[in-house]
């Protein structure tokens, strides 16, 4: 009796619940296709499939046939997956693939795909829209540069922050105090830093003409070497090479807050008449600008970081917002070629504005049931 009871209990403990779905084997995957991964550097084949009708599998197996091994299972993927990227292939070698649905002891294979080989592409078609936009924009800029070369008069709106440069440099001369120029904390590969270095050249020329003192503390060693060269050249161009002091442009440190502390200290000790903060800035922007404001300096700032702009607008007298920073060099130098590019830039913005307006109108019209045609136009231009 006791052995019978033990058997009964054991049976009750180990017997699994009956899963009727598992009794039938999983359905094989449907629509298995293999193709060369588009827009890549080669050595990659993309597989796609869909779950077949029937019981869901516990996993998918991906089998590759081709050299160097004749046949090999290259991956086991999750049941929710419907694709796999095989990056272990050799270019220009034919492979076939099979996908298996696995459930318990059952492994149901699909038929083999057509032979496929991988290759590197010469053009990334996903970036075609960027290429078109670039061509349009470059054409506009070059057209207006050529117009400027022919002597066409180009109107450029007033930028208060740049008009104030002359006044700011003059103020420093009158007060007998230095000017501090911070070319941002970015590297020389940042466009904002390049724009800032372009402005530095114009500011240094004015400083040399007015015989003021200029201090340029740097965070990036490459920016330091370029800034040093620019200031030296500008002094020479202004006819004052003797007035250039090699120690007026100096490297401080690559550490963000150590740099901010050093520049704060410099401002507190030197009590500059004017501060320029132009280039890339991060969290230290307000630390620098507030210290400068407390020392009573006139401050001109400019950055393309939308997160730091509010801080500069609050703490500085003039702020160059975004693109004004890039336009500053042309505005200050008044060179026709540079002004021509500004005009091209403005027409580029006009194109974007027109596209955005047209897109918005089409989207609104597409919401009216009777005007579904506009929805199809939107769909044609949508990124898929």
């Amino acid at each position, binding site marked *: 009796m006791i052995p019978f009871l033990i058997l009964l209990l054991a049976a009750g403990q180990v017997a699994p619940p009956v899963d009727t779905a598992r009794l039938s084997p999983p359905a094989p995957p449907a629509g298995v296709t293999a193709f060369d991964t588009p827009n890549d550097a080669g050595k990659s084949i993309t597989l796609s499939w869909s779950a077949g009708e029937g019981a869901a599998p516990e996993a998918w197996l991906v089998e590759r046939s081709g050299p160097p091994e004749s046949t090999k299972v290259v991956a086991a993927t999750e049941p929710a997956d419907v694709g796999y990227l095989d990056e272990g292939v050799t270019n220009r070698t034919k492979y076939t693939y099979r996908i298996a649905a696995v459930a318990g002891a059952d492994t149901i294979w699909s038929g083999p795909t057509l032979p496929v080989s991988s290759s590197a592409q010469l053009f*990334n078609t996903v970036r075609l829209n960027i290429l078109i936009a670039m061509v349009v924009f470059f054409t506009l800029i070059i057209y207006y540069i050529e117009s400027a070369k022919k002597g066409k008069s180009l109107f450029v709106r007033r930028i208060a922050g740049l008009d104030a440069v002359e006044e700011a440099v003059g103020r420093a001369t009158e007060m007998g105090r230095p000017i501090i120029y911070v070319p941002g904390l970015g590297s020389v590969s940042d466009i904002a830093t*390049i724009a800032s270095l372009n402005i530095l050249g114009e500011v240094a020329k004015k400083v040399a003409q007015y015989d003021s003192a200029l201090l340029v503390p740097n965070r990036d060693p490459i920016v330091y070497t370029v800034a040093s060269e620019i200031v030296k050249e500008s002094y020479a161009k202004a006819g004052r090479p003797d007035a250039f002091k090699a120690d007026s442009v100096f490297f401080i440190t690559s550490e963000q*807050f150590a740099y901010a502390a050093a520049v704060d200290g410099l401002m507190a000790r030197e009590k500059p008449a004017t501060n320029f903060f132009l280039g890339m800035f991060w969290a230290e922007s307000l630390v620098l600008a*507030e210290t400068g404001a407390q020392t009573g300096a006139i401050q001109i700032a400019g950055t393309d970081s939308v997160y730091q*702009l509010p801080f500069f607008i609050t703490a500085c007298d003039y702020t160059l917002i975004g*693109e004004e920073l890039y336009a500053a060099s042309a505005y200050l130098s008044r060179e026709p070629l540079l002004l021509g590019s500004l005009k091209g830039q403005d027409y580029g913005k006009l194109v974007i504005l027109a596209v955005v307006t047209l897109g918005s109108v089409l989207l609104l019209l597409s919401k009216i049931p009777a005007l579904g045609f506009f929805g199809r136009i939107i769909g044609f231009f949508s990124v898929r």
Partner: protein
Amino acid sequence: MKRSIPLAICLIMGAAMMVQFFVPHPVSVGFYDLTMKWVRIVGAFALVLGTGSLVMYHVDRIQRRKTGRYYSIVTLTAAAATAVIGLGWGIKPGSIFQDVIFSNLLVPLNASMFAILAFYMASAAYRAFRARTREAALLLVAAFVVMLGMVPIGAHIPFFWFLVVLAVALLVAGLVTRSKALMVGTGALVVGLLVWMGFWKFKVPQLMLPDTAEWVLSVPNMAAKRAILFGIALGGIATSLKVILGIERGWLGGGKQ
């Protein structure tokens, strides 16, 4: 020659990097990686120049007995000590460099500087929120809505009642200062509130402050941000093109073609 060689290098490399962006071929990817390596190598050489500049600058300050030369002594001593400890005892985890100089000196000092930002923000906010102009007043109201909408109590305040309190505050301020503009503003706000209530059949509209704050951030704020970003993107491309074509030569110290 001094200008034409850098300009030629800039043109060739700029054009090559532009083409590289559109070509996913391994040759193109390899070229990009190689260029990035060059940039790092040039950066390493520039660091030597930077260190030289740092030493020269502070030595000069000490020699000329300039104001604040004691800071220069501290800077040079710290730089020398860091270099000696790093070169002598290594920079691996557990070393003096990591445990003392980095973790117990540099990190807390950086954190202290970052913490100062909170106080600067308070003083900057005070300056920004002085409602001296119409724009500043609008900024003050928008900032107040966003700040109240972000704190727990804001979830219990309907935006309608916030505007009612604002209208009362404007009215009081207008009466005290006898400002015509404030009185006109109050009138406009009251009319606006009545129209809004009219749409809700003269019940308090169920729009809470967090929803309003979210709207301020995602609609007008986002629109302004995107407009600036469009300008930045185009300005960046134009600047790059000017540098590549040699039209912009400020980085070479300026000059005509």
